[in-house]
């Protein structure tokens, strides 16, 4: 065991740094071509980098003052891109990956529905085969970036006669396809909308744009959620992003509020938890280096990281007092780092309630951990085994 991170003079770091010296202000296309958008992917997309090299590249991208491609186009770089890599045909990969990784085409993930949030498997949007195409009808919600996206990755029901998790399939398609309507949602932060509703009316998608085979959708979703959670076990204020306890403590020292005994105690306790969360994500990284498959540690990390972030921004706002209650106002010093949308204590604070909802609610996460990690009995789902099209009031009543 060795907790040293790759040193400043690590030869691999120097090589990456040299490239940034030779290519100041690279475009996202240049970054992607060099393999720095997804270094852990195989060639030609990435460098088959081990997690240590990944970490070096991530740090050097940050050092060069570039907002990481995974922040600009997260769905392509982080979540769904990997599914396309694993389950798409070569033709699909050539069509969608280059502009996606170069952040020229933004992607959106069309998963959640008004009737299928935590219980995603209950989704109702369906696709019917019609010759060489599928025709999609239904409604999605909470789709981040959908209003700016050129590409959508969607999960739909292709077979309603089997139990709910079995009849699902995944497609990738252009958001400009006729029948796709995007309506931004104004969320409680009052900021420029981040999330959308997406209505799909007779949207025709070629069968060749299915990822994997018909009925494989649920398996691909589970793999994606696992990757998504992995990136979230950092100690920032929202889903691991944004300012951390280190920055909060340093701000409170600067303003002198650290002398208030109640603020001091809460700040110290947050600092402790934040440092331990860092160690947990470092261990995820090491496990990957050592070839241990990603386990439930990432879920544990998110379970703690989300309320940790809520407590962080709550303490920040408590310290700001009444002056902090004005729109877009921060009294505490802001972090020096560029955290993208989670750049201010103010936004993190008012965004806070979403942290324990997004990517599976805290309650569902705790179910997962207690069932899969601790081996406690599974929660009852009377609809889990019955054909989807037979789920209804009468059946629910009979099953309960």
């Amino acid at each position, binding site marked *: *065991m060795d907790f040293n991170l790759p040193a400043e003079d690590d030869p691999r770091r120097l090589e990456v740094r040299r490239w940034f010296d030779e290519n100041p202000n690279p475009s996202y296309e240049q970054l992607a071509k060099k393999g720095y958008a997804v270094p852990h992917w195989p060639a030609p997309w990435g460098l088959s980098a081990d997690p240590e090299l990944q970490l070096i590249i991530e740090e050097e991208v940050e050092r060069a003052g570039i907002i990481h491609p995974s922040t600009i186009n997260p769905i392509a770089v982080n979540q769904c891109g990997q599914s396309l890599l694993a389950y798409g045909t070569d033709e699909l990969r050539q069509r969608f990956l280059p502009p996606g990784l170069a952040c020229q085409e933004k992607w959106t993930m069309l998963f959640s529905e008004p009737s299928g949030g935590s219980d995603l498997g209950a989704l109702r949007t369906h696709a019917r085969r019609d010759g060489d195409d599928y025709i999609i009808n239904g409604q999605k919600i909470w789709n981040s970036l959908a209003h700016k996206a050129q590409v959508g990755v969607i999960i739909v029901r292709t077979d309603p006669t089997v139990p709910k998790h079995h009849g699902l399939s995944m497609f990738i398609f252009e958001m400009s396809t006729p029948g796709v309507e995007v309506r931004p949602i104004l969320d409680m932060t009052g900021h420029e909308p981040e999330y959308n509703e997406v209505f799909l009316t007779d949207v025709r998608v070629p069968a060749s744009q299915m990822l994997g085979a018909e009925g494989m959708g649920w398996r691909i979703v589970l793999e994606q959620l696992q990757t998504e959670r992995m990136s979230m076990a950092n100690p920032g204020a929202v889903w691991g992003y944004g300012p951390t306890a280190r920055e909060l403590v340093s701000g409170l020292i600067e303003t002198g509020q650290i002398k208030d005994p109640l603020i001091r105690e809460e700040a*110290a*306790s947050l600092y402790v938890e934040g440092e*331990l969360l860092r160690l947990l994500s470092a*261990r995820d*990284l090491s496990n990957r280096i050592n070839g241990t498959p990603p386990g439930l540690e990432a879920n544990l990390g998110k379970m703690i990281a989300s309320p940790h972030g809520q407590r962080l921004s709550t303490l920040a706002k408590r310290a700001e007092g009444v002056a902090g209650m004005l729109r877009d106002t921060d009294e505490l010093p802001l972090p020096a780092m560029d955290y993208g949308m989670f750049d201010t204590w103010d936004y993190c604070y008012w965004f806070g309630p979403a942290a324990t909802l997004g990517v599976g609610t805290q309650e569902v996460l*705790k179910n997962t951990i207690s*069932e899969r990690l601790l081996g*406690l009995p599974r929660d009852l789902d009377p609809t889990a085994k019955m054909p989807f099209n037979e789920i209804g009031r009468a059946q629910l009543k009979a099953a309960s």
Partner: protein
Amino acid sequence: MDFTLSDEHLALQDSARYFLSKEVKLEPYLRTEANEKPVARDGLWSAIQGLGWPGLVVPEAYGGLGMGCLDLVMIVSEMGRTLAPSPFIGNLAGTWAIERCGSEAQKQALLAQVAAGELTLALAVADPNGDVNGLSAGARATGSGDQWKLNGKKSFVVEAGSADKIVVIADVDGEQGFFIVDAKAAGVQIERLDWRDVTREVNAITFTDVAAERLPQSDADSWSWIRDRLYLVLAAESAGGAEQVLADAVAYANERVAFGRPIGSYQSIKHNLAELAGGIELARAGVQFAAWALSENRPEARKAAAIAQSYASEQYCAMTFRSIQVFGAIGFTWEMRNHLYYKRARTNAELLGSPRDQREQLICLLEAEHRAAA
């Protein structure tokens, strides 16, 4: 960079777990008589000495195995998991005091005996009020050269009853000094305190003109150096204990049926246990990091030790509380082992100052760093 435990560490953990699962007997502590008078110690400590564990972190030059703190926490976590009633950590405290403050001759003589399992030590720090940071208060040393006399009273000494020699922190003309006395020397009076955790002996000691030998290499930093290592072992014990208590609670929740279902299928129980599992995982990560940082003399070691102890002891308290709730009223009885862990958790959280004290130390370090950077 490798944050994962090596195969050697895992092997050490496995062998410790196997040994302790056979050797530790908690039954005597769960009989009602254990509430009346202390349970007599069994052969566990001599078996542990036979394995060479007391010499684990003693440098090779002094006859020990010269292993690092990470190796140590592999074993201490397992001792915490089983509660292993023995003077192991009391002895360790005395060992570190001699390693840090002893002369070359003292180290040669004493550490070799500890490593060989021929000598058991203890360390007296706290004054009768339990203050470990006033340091010297409670005992006073007078004299010079190799002629010293100790007077005063120390308390909350871990396992002094098993010790052959006791290291005492005492006031020498307003400064802090480290001294060593024979536990059986004239003027040493050891009293057993009615400590809540019956698996651990804790003592008060009165010194009346006791002949003492000084450990001459001590300085202003000696106590913090030892304290950080003791934070680590307490935290390792707590993390190991909490893991066991979680496993017990999960097993019981799977087994116990109410209203036609195992109680572990109710979310109010599942979710609590999931949260605790997360906290215990963080505690374990903190213990391992602190062990590494202390072994490598990293600048962040002091912070890491305070983080590990404050967090692990609170998680242990939370876990042992929840375990009794999951077990229901049976968990409240003396005959169940839940209360032994419950008491170990709470006494571990107070023995060297409270979690809040450790967080205060942490914040003071951060304030100092901030001033230095400005």
